[in-house]
């Protein structure tokens, strides 16, 4: 089983990001970058599939700056076999440009599965996986929370509003992974040491101009201080009054 996992370098969700002076991008100084958490599920799933099959290859592909090599090595430390970085000074804001570059790289790779996280936690676009599927003319299942593969067919479950949807698909296919699919492993210390020695190929990403432009970034409005109305049951009438008259939510 040959599996590609596409991963993105994103700011750690725990770091407080600042908007840069141009008002359109993030100030990266002091920001810690990590492997996109949804992509961790994809890496883990690929490793488990390969382990189950007893043979195969897990290739990690990323499009990003040179520093994304570190992100790829995190996946190599978890156990992936080799990495490819499509180097770009900036990740285009237009997901289609990213998808085109990735599709070109993946096209002739002979992959049985191409996995993505369902979204990147920096731009929340949910785009690139399905776009790559479309460009490669492959079936696509998004937000997979459970996966079974038998021979050349797969069954995936996705959590949808109020229930679970079960989808069958033929391989090769593109899947995007959701929380709950698995419990990603920690990169073991030996894995971290081994990752240094695994092949990591660098290529220049071929990127078009794209059709999107960021006009501005604004932080969410500051939350106003809360108000303590009182304590215990005695406070309920006043709370109801405020919810009705001031907040107008009742």
């Amino acid at each position: 089983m040959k599996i590609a996992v596409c991963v993105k370098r994103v700011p750690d969700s725990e770091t407080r990001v600042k908007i840069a002076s141009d008002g359109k991008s993030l100030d990266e100084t002091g920001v810690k970058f990590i492997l996109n958490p949804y992509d961790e599920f994809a890496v883990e799933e690929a490793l488990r599939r390969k382990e189950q099959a007893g043979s195969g290859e897990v290739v990690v592909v990323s499009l990003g700056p040179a520093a994304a090599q570190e992100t790829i090595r995190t996946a190599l430390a978890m156990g992936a076999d080799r990495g490819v970085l499509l180097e770009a000074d900036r990740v285009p804001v237009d997901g289609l440009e990213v998808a085109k570059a990735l599709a070109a790289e993946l096209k002739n790779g002979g992959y049985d599965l191409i996995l993505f996280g369902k979204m990147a936690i920096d731009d929340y676009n949910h785009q690139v996986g399905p776009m790559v599927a479309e460009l490669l003319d492959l079936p696509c299942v998004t937000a997979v929370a459970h996966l079974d593969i038998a021979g050349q067919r797969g069954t995936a479950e996705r959590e949808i509003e109020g229930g679970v949807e079960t989808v069958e698909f033929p391989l090769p296919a593109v899947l995007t992974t959701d929380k709950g699919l698995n419990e990603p492993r920690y990169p073991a210390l030996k894995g971290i040491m081994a990752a240094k020695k695994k092949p990591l190929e660098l290529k220049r990403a071929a990127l078009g101009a794209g059709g999107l432009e960021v006009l501005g970034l604004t932080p969410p409005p500051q939350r106003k201080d809360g108000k303590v109305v009182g304590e215990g049951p005695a406070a309920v009438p006043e709370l109801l009054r405020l919810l009705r008259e001031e907040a107008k939510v009742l």
Partner: protein
Amino acid sequence: MAPKFQGVDFYDVDGLLSEEERAVRDTVRAWVDDNLMPVIAEHYLEGRFPKHLVPQMAELGLFGANLPEEYGCAGLNHVAYGLIMQELERGDSGVRSFASVQGALVMYPIFAFGSEEQKRHWLPKMAAGEVIGCFGLTEPDYGSNPAGMITTARETKSGWILNGAKMWITNGSTAHAAIIWAKTGQPDDVESIRGFIVPTDTQGFSAKDQKGKLSLRASDTSELVLQDVCVPKDAVLPKSAGLKSPLLCLTQARYGIAWGAVGAALACYDEAVSYAKARVMFGKPIGAFQLQQARLAEMLTEITKAQLLCLQLGRLKDQGKVTPQQVSLAKRNNVSMATDVARETRRLLGANGILAEYQAMRHLANLESVYTYEGTHDIHTLILGQEITGLNAFN
């Protein structure tokens, strides 16, 4: 869910670490957040070592991580090893103590003084956490002065017979194998001290849990009694010779403790900062008052100094240039520093600071043990005093 620990890095010390060193640190940090933090308070209160975590720690490769891969270890450099100790002790000194003993006091002497067969037999199993070890040097009447030990090993036709008692032995009741230091010659012959690998199920060997500890409660500390314990000839560590052998082990462990103490201080400082910003008294956060700011400024300063001290110590060790006295300075400084940070955090937290729900008091109590074991603070002062003056003030 509690927020993930972000570390403290005022001087961009991260920039001095390699990518692998940071990756190791981040892995252990995440593991501690996910697996140790949720259970440590309850284990501490119940006085139990969280033994269920041992297989996971082994899986990650935390035991003897700076020993070579050919013996089943991770083969990390000493800086990465130090960062592991830091992150474990950020969780709890007891868990770091477990790893210190297993790696630096049990696996290290087998690696350094053992035969090739002993190494191949024991090290992979210990790295895998299948065999847990303990290190028996201290005796009821010989703490700071292990040279005086009265445990003996007598050679017979078929092996050795050990007799004596060991006190304050970390992992003592949990261990499958004990490294026992004993005199093979006359009571005053310090050169005759040798190390033995003693399976704890050997007849005549018993371990008794030390009751009533108010410190390192999430760690097993035991008294060992050896009564006519017979072990085969190949139980002796062939290259161990004299007191300097166990002291070499202690230097390894002290090195890790110097890093570990920084971890405990980081945990406390982190707690102090968030509490100071959140707790409102007299109409503003207590962090807005100069007294609390002075506390925090002092903590950050001392932590930053200790971080740089550890890193340079580790770089020297990686270059094979470190001296035991340099390790003494770092153990002495960092443990004392961490104890101060823990105490100040405890105080800054007011009444909440005495609860197990917060970390400061647990760390404070733990660090009092760390202050005492592996050479008390005073003993390291004397080691440095001797280094400076050339004059021995021990006796």
